[in-house]
């Protein structure tokens, strides 16, 4: 299991080198700062050092218990991230793709609502609004009950 919380950029290719030996399927998802709100230049991500690592490890551990994964990885950045920058990545390795896809979706759903990160929009004039959690993100968790 690989869990990382960092400010600096990450390189998916190097993280995936040797990932999930013997796997028949590796699914990766990379979240990127979306540029669709016009004025927005960047996101500022705040997090809770200590709890973030614990929460991400717990979520990755739950995925491993639930599916027969050969390996799992979750990397999440914090700090100022410009439009187009990578925010986070999850990767799952399994013998077959159904498990790898399902586990990656589970990780995404849980990281969104249960890992202690908070996003704020940064516009041309400086810091703007905190991004509000969507009820649909909370609802997405219920499908895993």
């Amino acid at each position, binding site marked *: 299991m690989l869990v990382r919380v960092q400010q600096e950029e990450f390189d998916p290719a190097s993280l995936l080198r040797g990932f999930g030996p013997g796997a028949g399927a590796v699914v990766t998802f990379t979240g990127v700062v979306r540029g669709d709100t016009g004025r927005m230049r960047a996101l500022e991500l705040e997090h809770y050092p200590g709890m973030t690592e614990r929460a991400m490890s717990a979520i990755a551990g739950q995925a491993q218990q639930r599916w027969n994964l050969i390996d799992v990885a979750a990397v*999440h950045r914090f700090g100022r991230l410009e439009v187009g920058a990578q925010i986070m990545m999850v990767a799952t390795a399994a013998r077959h793709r159904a498990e790898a896809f399902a586990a990656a979706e589970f990780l995404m759903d849980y990281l969104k609502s*249960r*890992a*202690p990160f*908070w996003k704020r929009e940064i516009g041309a004039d400086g810091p703007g609004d905190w991004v509000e*959690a969507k009820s649909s993100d909370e609802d997405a968790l219920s499908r895993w009950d």
Partner: protein
Amino acid sequence: MTLDVLYFAWLRERIGAPKERVETAAATVRELVAELVALDDNHAAALSDLSAVRVAVDQELADLDHSLDGVREVAFFPPMTGG
């Protein structure tokens, strides 16, 4: 009992500090909130709508009725927006 109380995102801004050390006799998170709200207007404003506030006790998500017995750190923050 001495507790570290942490605030994140807009709660941190409304309180005006990321962290404070409080001396408390509160038995639960809910009792701690009542003590904090009585401190000043900033605390009262930040903690006025608890439906918009999430709590972690020693870095694990918890509810307002969670015991503070043996606890060292309590954090208050808005719903998380990771991913």
